[in-house]
């Protein structure tokens, strides 16, 4: 039988899905063992048990100096920045995307500009951002906004343009003004797309957040990772990496669920 027609049974499928995770874990454990054998104090690949202890400590024990649990502080600070940046980007991209998609004047004026802007490497502009927006929260949020808005806007504008012209004409024959068409025809139809854009952009948003926090900050997940890099505390770094991965996963899942719940008409077909 052809390979494409071989379908694993349910238990085998579960096993297969677990396999790469197990393999990764095993590879890490062995690598860690080898290094720790050579130097019991090696910090680069701490034993899984060490990571587990560190993780437990990070999640539960308050810092000696500040009496606060740093991991939670970092998480809240980073999430606030991330959600702020992504939220503003979503809003901006929605507004500009609708304008570009619906209004020929806006399209002429902005579409090539945004195409060019989306190619600019935002990290290189950090110094200017600092001067303009200061070193505080603003510049971190702005870096995220500058980093992901152009892409989201281009895509949304494209989606608005893909709304069948028939619908736009139909709305006009029902007396809809431009504003009503934007609000009641285009907006609801691109909202699901906005959510999937946010999901797509979250990876970059995290990157920009981590980069911004590495530059100037005193709290945040990215800040902590770069700080403890100073003494190669890989147990802390790995805990944070796993935690960030989990948060990213969680946010992605929430958005997916939101999209499914909020837009029943998307799936009503078939």
């Amino acid at each position: 039988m052809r390979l494409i027609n071989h379908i694993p049974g349910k238990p085998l499928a579960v096993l297969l899905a677990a396999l790469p995770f197990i393999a990764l874990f095993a590879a890490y454990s062995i690598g860690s063992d080898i290094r720790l054998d050579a130097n019991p104090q090696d910090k680069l690949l701490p034993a899984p048990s060490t990571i587990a202890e560190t993780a437990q400590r990070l999640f539960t024990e308050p810092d000696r100096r500040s009496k606060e649990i740093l991991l939670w502080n970092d998480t809240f600070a980073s999430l606030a920045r991330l959600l702020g940046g992504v939220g503003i980007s979503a809003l901006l991209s929605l507004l500009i995307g609708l304008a570009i998609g619906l209004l020929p004047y806006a399209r002429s004026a902005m579409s090539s500009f945004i195409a060019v802007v989306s190619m600019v490497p935002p990290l290189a502009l950090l110094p200017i951002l600092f001067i303009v927006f200061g070193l505080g929260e603003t510049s971190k949020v702005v870096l995220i906004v500058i980093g992901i808005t152009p892409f989201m806007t281009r895509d949304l504008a494209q989606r608005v343009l893909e709304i069948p012209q028939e619908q736009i004409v139909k709305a006009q024959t029902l007396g809809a003004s431009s504003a009503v068409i934007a609000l009641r025809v285009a907006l609801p139809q691109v909202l699901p797309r906005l959510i999937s854009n946010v999901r797509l952009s979250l990876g970059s948003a995290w990157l920009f957040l981590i980069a911004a926090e590495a530059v100037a900050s005193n709290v945040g997940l990215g800040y902590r990772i770069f700080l403890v890099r100073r003494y190669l505390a890989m147990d802390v770094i790995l805990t944070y990496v796993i935690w960030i991965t989990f948060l990213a996963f969680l946010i992605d899942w929430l958005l997916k669920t939101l999209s499914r719940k909020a837009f029943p008409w998307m799936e009503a077909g078939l």
Partner: protein
Amino acid sequence: AAEEKTEFKLAWSIYVGWMPWGYLEDSGIMDKWAEKYGIDVEIVQFNDYVESINQYTAGAFDGVSATNMDTLSIPSGGGVDTTALIVGDYSNGNDAVIMKGAGGIADLKGKPVNLVELSVSHYLLARALDTVGMEESDLDAVINTSDADMIAAYATNDVEAVVTWNPLVSEITGSNADANVLFDSADIPGEILDLMVVNTETLADNPAFGKAVAGAWYELMALMAAGDEAALTAMAEASGTDLAGYKAQLAATEMFFDPAAAVAQASSADLPTTMTSVAEFLFDKGILGEGAPSADFVGIAYPDGSTTGDSGNVKFRFDTTYMQMAADGAL
């Protein structure tokens, strides 16, 4: 796990006192000395200082340019037995606490200070605050700021004070009239040492490595002491400034052009005291690792055989053997 071998790799990053490492590689001086001892030494430049030490600690390099403080915290704290092969200089004004506008250290109270956290800047700040009996908690906050962006950061309104090193210090003081140096490393001479540290076992198994590196280094030191324009210009350009700028930075650096001076520094009676206070600083900040039971959990050995810290866990050694050979012309 060290053994006899013929190929060695050193890592270095851009800093006024370490620029010679780059020049050693480019000019062929290193190759010449390596050849003399039948080995091969490669010197690799890093842009990111911390990463270079991490790489050394992880075993990717046999030696790295680092300060005494970072050596103690990263490789030694990480269990890698490390020897200071060459004491190149100590910072004598290269690191500075700078505030915008007039005032003294006490005026830092309630202000945010931007610096590379857990670096020598942080240590310098702690020492500065000590002098007026203040603590870090008296400040508004310490904000970790990448050295690459320190100059841009200084230009923003949010920033009221920074602690950083050269060439950033001269850049900031040079182009900002309001930059007020409150405290600098000249106030704590000999505490911030710029070293070339190597893996102790590697060095023990391969004395030729130590000899070649020391030989090359002090050949160049002699050239620099003599004011060799070609060498100094090349180093100046590699560090992104011009000859005059580089000379100005050197002025704030107590270079040990003479190996005997380096030996003297390494054997100085003050060194154990300095290292103990550094260790305390590190422990205080949690930099020795959360597992570190106390400030003296890492042992430090000095040329005369004395130790500070845990003598059963000596991971950081000041060794004057090779500098002494250079001083004696025995290389």
